């Protein structure tokens, strides 16, 4: 039981992860899909950052003459800086695609898009036969 409480950060991460993944997979709205993806990515950022935390540690800025300070591990933070950039880039790209999908289909609902595609398919192939 204590262990569960002590690892509460992982539970937060896991819950966020599941929420994000579920939204990304189950929602038909493309914007919501992007949001789900974002939540999913954010959960990973949390995972890394909480991983780098050393209890009682402070920001790893060296101060001359002091070697008794406990620092947190800075590496995960640095990594997550990059991951944030990647996240921003993929979100921007995803949204850009959604904008263009909306322009050419007139909708951002996945099932409607699939229906439109199917109708187009049928028109094309039956037109060929006729």
């Amino acid at each position, binding site marked *: 039981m204590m262990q569960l409480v002590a690892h509460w950060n992982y539970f937060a991460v896991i819950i966020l992860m599941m929420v994000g993944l579920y939204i990304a997979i189950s929602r038909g709205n493309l914007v919501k899909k992007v949001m789900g993806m974002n939540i999913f990515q954010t959960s990973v950022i949390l995972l890394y950052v909480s991983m780098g935390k050393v209890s009682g540690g402070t920001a790893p800025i060296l101060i001359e003459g002091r070697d008794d300070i406990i620092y947190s591990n800075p590496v995960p933070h640095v*990594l997550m800086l990059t*991951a944030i950039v990647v996240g921003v880039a*993929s979100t921007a*790209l*995803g949204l850009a*695609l959604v904008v263009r999908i909306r322009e*050419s289909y007139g909708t951002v609902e996945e099932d409607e898009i699939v229906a439109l595609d199917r109708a187009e398919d049928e028109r094309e192939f039956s037109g*060929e036969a006729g």
Partner: protein
Amino acid sequence: MNDFSVHLPILQVVIPLLAAPFCFILRKEAVVSVFTVLVGFACFAISMDLLAQVIDGDVLVYELGDWARPWGIEYRIDILNALLLVVVSSMAAVVFIAGPGQARRAIPEGRGYLFYSAALLTLTGLLGVTITGDVFNVFVFLEISSLSSYILIALGRSRRALMAAFSYLIMGTIGATFLLIGIGLMYQMTGTLNMVDMTERLRDAEQTRTIFVALAFVVVGISVKLAVFPLHQWLPNAYSFSPPLVSAFLASTATKVAYYLLIRFCLGLFGLTLVFEVVEIDVLLLPLSVMAMFVGSIAAIYQRDFKRLLAYSSIAQVGYMTLGLSLASEAGVAAGLIHVFNHALMKGALFLVAACVTWRMGGTRLDAMKGLGRRMPVTMAAMVVGGLALVGVPGTVGFVSKWALVSAALEKDAYLLGFLVMASSLLALVYVWKLVEIVYFQEPETGIERREPPLRLLVPTWILAGASIYFGVFSDFAVDVASRAAAQIFAAGM
């Protein structure tokens, strides 16, 4: 100058990386396209040189900014990634020749250089993933290549390309994030990101649940990128609606690099014992590979579009590669790597044929390809060569792969498996033959005027088709390099 050659590992990545923004400055499409081809061939030359340097078993290490590991990022080249570098850069060089005019429909007039920038960035990412010796760097480069490849896919003619790119984006990002989680857990266990250090510490570390979970996340993440059945859903749409050149480039490089990652992580980092004896990943991977071989091929038979057919066939071919890995033997991995090389050649050739067909017919629907054998005989001959290679007819590269793979299976006394590989290549015969009959035996609807695509399309197509035959007859190169690479990674994985 001689001295400068120590910088080749970094130049391999930096040249395309800097060339991408340089395209922004050059702007003129005619100039940019020539420039891109030059960059492609420069990369190819570098990768060949690197392969020559490491082929005898030496490992090249290049420390970025002179920071030694574990502080800095290092590039680390052994035979395995040198082989992949050659595959990726050679495919890029050849495919770039056919560059001009690919995305006319999707890109506003005068901004064609954007296409080249994205292509070069994809190349950078793929090369970077392959060359780096730092696991987090793998993730970064993987995302560079993925993001730019989503852009490339979205440039397809029809609006469906957008949806295909979007689905790929979601799937790809989830996959990459899985990989990132796995890497995070590995970092947590080992405290390093450098592959060499990580390997050492993982070998010594206790086999805790964290490591198993890390392995699971990493394998699933890579499998999405690799399109391992049943995580392949994004692939057919992505390949069939993207511009044909993009399909040619991605089909012959992106999945290959993902396969490399799978080998690197499973054998190089986690190690043979953990992956195949403790977790027994092959229990899952092997049936999935076999399923992929059959499902992919059977689905390919029923397609009504040439590129879509090729895309499904790719899923089956990925099955051969993962089958090689899941045999967990040196011969199996070598067979998988041989197939990486060979499949790049033949699929590249076939997708370039699709580019030629698109140029002529405006699309690749099979019913529009009737009688093309008489209308564009040179192109269609290349298609026959590529198709026969897919089937695995002797004298083509496909035969070499299949020989290696089945031998590897039989060596492990997996007779049924070897037989199944044979059976699945018969399914390939069915869809290839369907193509041949459509192209040669059905009457075209609109005249039989003979008109071949321009040389810039025809030449790369035939370079790859010719290579599919050349390396099928003189297969020493691929077999030798792949066997050495497998031996090296296996020694490391013990």
